């Protein structure tokens, strides 16, 4: 009988209804039955996801419309953009004021202006973020893996000492922290493929250094004695087993990472000062710098977030205009520099950089024009106070994304939104399963990648239906 059948037969009995394997501790991930059909040529090895957490208004960022400056007594419904438009590297393509630097490198990537976010009723940011990152709408009867975990599972690390999935900038002690945790997970793929969390990039080095107060020689000695005692112990008589083997292996890996030269990638102080200063716009900017350094040393999937905290950062329920001016200062320089630096070091060709947000915002429409949901922001029809001047409602029908490198077209604009309210997608709507499959395609991961869990196939995108958008590729 072919081994294929044995494997299937075995898995039929082994795929548990509980995500984990045996109480005894079966190595879960190794037991999952998967299926990869055809091999695709990858155009990227690394993915960097720049996450604009909280809902980034497209008309005030990468898809500006008619600008109406603030005046007391203005009609809210007249306002489409609260910033001027500024030129980009492409003719007739404009970004919103404050994003000039990113605009200047648009000739190295593609702006997507037609992302349509999922419809999930009464808006809860963390639910839409869950959907964006896993491609599944919560709740699910099995724990859905983060896209970074899928990639980590399918491809493993680029450099074996750098964790395959690194998550920079998100703390979980904030509002909706539990909901954020629910998708920052490898789910049924198993902890091994979960995110390596660096909540604060300026302290990232701590994560890959020997414990506080331990110098490297003591660290090395400790490890050496550990190995000696392990080998000296009477364990040999008891025979080897998979738990012991996996413990030994992972301890070795951890040791390698912590004392490897690559660990310096986490050390931002090693960056030349003039470059460091460009990135140093705050936590997000430094996260971009760390992403750059890790990419150059061989990372697989990195996500850098502006951090989600209810009513903070991009989650503009008030003062949208003034707050966006600040947000742009945080992101514009570092993102442009990240692209330039990776381009210069030759990594951009094999690194797919994506900028995205869970949905967009609009001043008037909550949800979609034809599918409005419960409003959460009180927007007066006549604006007297600048705090009401901005995109404050949650809009899902037209969102902007950026993609750079990794085989993506250079100097291209994909899709279109209407120029008048509602500024919804009118050309080439693109949904999350297409985005995910485009990323997988770039990495050479087949569309039908799935694992059998609880006897059901669980695909990277629901039912394995998503298709990569080939128009985005060069």
């Amino acid at each position, binding site marked *: 009988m072919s081994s294929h059948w044995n494997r299937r037969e075995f898995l*039929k009995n082994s795929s548990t209804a509980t995500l984990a394997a045996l109480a005894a501790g079966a190595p879960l991930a190794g037991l999952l039955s998967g299926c990869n059909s055809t091999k695709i040529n990858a155009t990227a090895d690394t993915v960097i996801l720049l996450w604009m957490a909280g809902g980034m208004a497209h008309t005030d960022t990468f898809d500006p419309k008619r600008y109406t400056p603030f005046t007391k007594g203005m009609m809210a419904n007249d306002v489409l953009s609260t910033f001027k438009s500024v030129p980009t590297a492409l003719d007739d393509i404009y970004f919103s004021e404050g994003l000039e630097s990113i605009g200047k490198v648009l000739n190295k990537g593609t702006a997507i202006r037609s992302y349509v976010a999922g419809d999930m009723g009464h808006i809860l940011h963390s639910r839409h973020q869950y959907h964006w990152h896993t491609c599944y709408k919560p709740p699910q009867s099995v724990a859905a893996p983060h896209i970074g975990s899928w990639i980590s599972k399918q491809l493993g690390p680029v450099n074996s000492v750098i964790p395959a999935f690194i998550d920079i900038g998100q703390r979980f002690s904030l509002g909706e922290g539990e909901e954020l945790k629910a998708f920052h997970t490898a789910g049924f793929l198993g902890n091994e493929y979960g995110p*390596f969390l660096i909540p604060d990039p300026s302290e990232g080095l701590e994560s890959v250094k020997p414990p506080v107060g331990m110098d490297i020689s003591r660290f090395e000695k400790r490890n050496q004695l550990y190995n000696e*005692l392990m080998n000296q112990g009477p364990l040999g008589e008891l025979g080897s087993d998979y738990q012991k083997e996996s413990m030994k292996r992972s301890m070795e890996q951890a040791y390698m990472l912590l004392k490897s030269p690559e660990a310096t990638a986490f050390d931002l102080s090693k960056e030349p000062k003039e470059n460091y200063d460009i990135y140093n716009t705050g936590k997000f900017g430094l996260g971009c710098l760390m992403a750059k350094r890790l990419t150059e040393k061989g990372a697989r999937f990195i996500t850098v977030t502006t951090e989600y905290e209810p009513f903070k950062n991009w989650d503009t329920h008030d003062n949208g205009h003034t707050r966006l001016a600040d947000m742009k200062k945080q992101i514009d320089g570092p993102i442009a520099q990240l692209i330039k630096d990776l381009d210069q070091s030759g990594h951009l060709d094999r690194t797919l950089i994506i900028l995205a947000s869970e949905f967009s915002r609009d001043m008037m429409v909550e949800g979609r024009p034809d599918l409005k949901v419960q409003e959460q922001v009180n927007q007066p029809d006549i604006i007297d106070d600048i705090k009401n001047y901005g995109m404050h409602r949650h809009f899902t029908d037209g969102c902007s994304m950026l993609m750079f490198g990794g085989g993506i077209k250079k100097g291209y604009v994909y899709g279109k939104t209407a120029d008048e309210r509602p500024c919804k997608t009118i050309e080439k709507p693109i949904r999350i399963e297409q985005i995910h499959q485009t990323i997988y395609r770039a990495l050479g991961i087949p569309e039908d990648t799935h694992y059998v869990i609880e006897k059901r196939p669980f695909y990277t995108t629901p039912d394995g239906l998503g298709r990569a958008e080939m128009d985005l590729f060069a």
Partner: protein
Amino acid sequence: MKDVKNKSYPRKKLAIVISTLVILCFLQISLNSYAESPTDNVSNDFFWLWRFLGRLHPIAVHFPVSLLLFAALLELFTLKNFDAPSRIGIRLLLAAGTIAAIISAIMGLLLVKEGGYELQASNIHQWTGIGTAFFSAVTWFLSNSIHKKNKRSLINLYRVLLFISAIGVAIAGHFGASLTHGKDYITATIPWSDNYDKSINSKFDVSALKNDTTPLTKQQSIELNVKVRAIFAHNCYKCHGPEKIKGDLRLDRRDMIFKGGENGPVVIPGDPAASDLYRRITLPSNHEDAMPSKGKKLSDEDIAVINFWIQKGAPWPDSSEKSIFRLAPLAPRNPTLPIATENLKNPIDLWTNQYFSANKIIWPKVVDDNTFLRRISLDLVGLVPSGEELEKFAKDNRKNKREIWIRKLLNQKDDYTLHWLSFWNDALRNDYTGTGYITGGRRNITYWLFNAIKSNKSYDQFVKELLNPTDESNGFIEGIKWRGVVNASQRTEMQAAQNVSQVFLGLNLKCASCHNSFISDWKLTDAYAFANIFADTSLEINRCDKPTGKFTGARMLWKELGAIDSSAKREEKLAQLATNMVQASNGRFYRTIVNRIWAQLMGRGLIEPLDVMDNEAWSQDLLDWMAFNFQKNNSDIKELLFLITSSNTYQLPSVSFNDASKIISPQYVFKGRLRKRMSAEQFADAASTIITPIFYDSMSITYVDKKAVLEEIKKQKERQEKKKAEDKKKKKDKNKDKENIAREKKEKEKKERKMMAPKKLPPIIGAAFVRASLVNNNPFLISLGRPTRETVSTSRESQSNLLQALELTNGDRFNSMIQRGASIWKNKYITGDVIIKEIYQQALGRAATKSEYTIAKKLLGETPTPDAIEDLFWIILLLPEFQIIY
């Protein structure tokens, strides 16, 4: 003369209308004799003309009947002036529409007799259609009366009937469209619609098998059949399934598929080339006969699977015989115990003895005292024995000392409870933090759970209180509710159905809660009928998240388990469920828990996976015997634990595997308990015991002391009353503005959420340290395998990984603990020799060997520094010997 003519004209008309209706009724009745059911019996001797006319029905109807709608619309514009110039037009439209309605009703009856349509939707369409024809005819008659005889008093009645007819057209039209094209015909064409036409392509590597000429094993047949059914379900059922039976072909049932369609058999087992089904799916999609005619062409791989399936004789479960899916018997069974031998008294050992002799296994010697004590301590109370205890146990000379010590551990009530709390928290998806709490969509049951475990509540009572809960125990069946719209298969009632069947019956209802399962015989209606028990009213059945317009009553999954009164209130249904579930004759229910407890102790269930209780046990007799006697013995969990741990079977040396996959392979042979790795909680608690508490700080802890909880509830009530009084006062104040109201609403919501959130209180007084089962989930415990409890979890992952190793190597929680512990030990034990002796004794339950001592001494020296002690702690706690339970 004129008068007479005027009188006779409508009468003639009326006569025609009535006779037409009579013909309709006649057709309806007489044609029934042709076919009892349109799905089962489509006669070939059906007169061709009727068939032809019948098929004209859709064309003949759709346009002219809509004239009635148009007539009604125009009528709206003449409401003020009946004699408006459009009157003549309305009358013409009415006449044409009425005639069309009558004709189409006749043709429709002919078509439905020909068959191929789903019964329910077809019935609605049929009767609304006939009704429309009737009402429009009467309307027409009235219209003529008004016009010809100037009976203006009839205008209102006429208008009412006209609008009824128009509504009838709309309803009949809707159901007619669903019949012809399926319910999601229109939305399915929109790519960004949520209903976008989907099809799962379960890939199946046929190429690996193609050249294999050996016949399929039973297991392979099942696999193959499931693949084929998945392909059919997602590509064909729309037109050839329970809802619609195009061409008289149903592909969802064995009898139907081999009966074939109107053109005869479609599958010739063993001969793909001769099978019409195979011919059609391989035709180019523009060919007239190509299938699927409406959806996408099947992928090459799917076609290959079907080809292979037919070639192999088209295996399919025979509903009249045993199902292709193994279904374990439901009833309890009490096999006769093998006769006791001189050495073996424990019933478990008698069964094992029988199993061993059948498998030619010789009983090994049971483990030594140290291994035994460490094993039962960790298994029963989750703690490592102290050095003193090990010594005391070794010196205990009583013959039945092992049994005595098992009893002793089982009587350490708090320790026991705090160990098993983790097991139940995982299974009941009870956690102190997690999704849902933020919007009040989740409830915590820790207080109830803690007391239920501590009082060793009988298992039947335990489950009854979860199924028919109080406010303290309702968290399990209430599930997790996220804000916004959720998939129908994840509504909280369905979550309850899935979780209850998984945890208490070892049954996977997740597939069937979306569509008829193709990995078991469970149907969508079974899942909904079970979910309805947890619902206030009957839930509308959704198939793949699309409403079907159908409903079903409330039922147990097995009718043998008793009835549920569908019309009863939720509380009554839950009470019936609770009683039905725990009844003695529900053998599966007791087998499921016995298998879970067995797996907790032995590292592997008698049946694996634990949630698939339809699989075979490695010893059915042992499982059945234990389950039967567990139930008879007041379903006492502690007694079950005693029975197992006091057996020689439990005390056999542990068995190790190099390849974990062998553990759950069907060829598994029981030779003894598996080597297990400590759980996250066991590891944390062991470190806390030996060195210094790992959880000691302000980390939020869920407390379960009754007095404190009662106090908290009292405080909450006081606060509420105070707030109420304030509110009353405020209400008097009439100057409340909008913002104020909104703020109050928010505060109220916040308060409600707080009520639902777990109660955070100080740790148990008197406990040496905070047990890990009580602390909020955190990166340290997660990395060691504690699940997030967003979904039910009945087993733990215990393989190491890099993230876990990193957490232990430089993670703050672990390293700060050993750092604190080092100073304490330095002051307590002072010299290197004592420290080495103590750490080996306390952590590993033995003295260091000579070479181990040499290495450790090299590190510590005579008077060790705290750093050196810290490093030794780290080394010892990370040794596999420490973390593995032998």
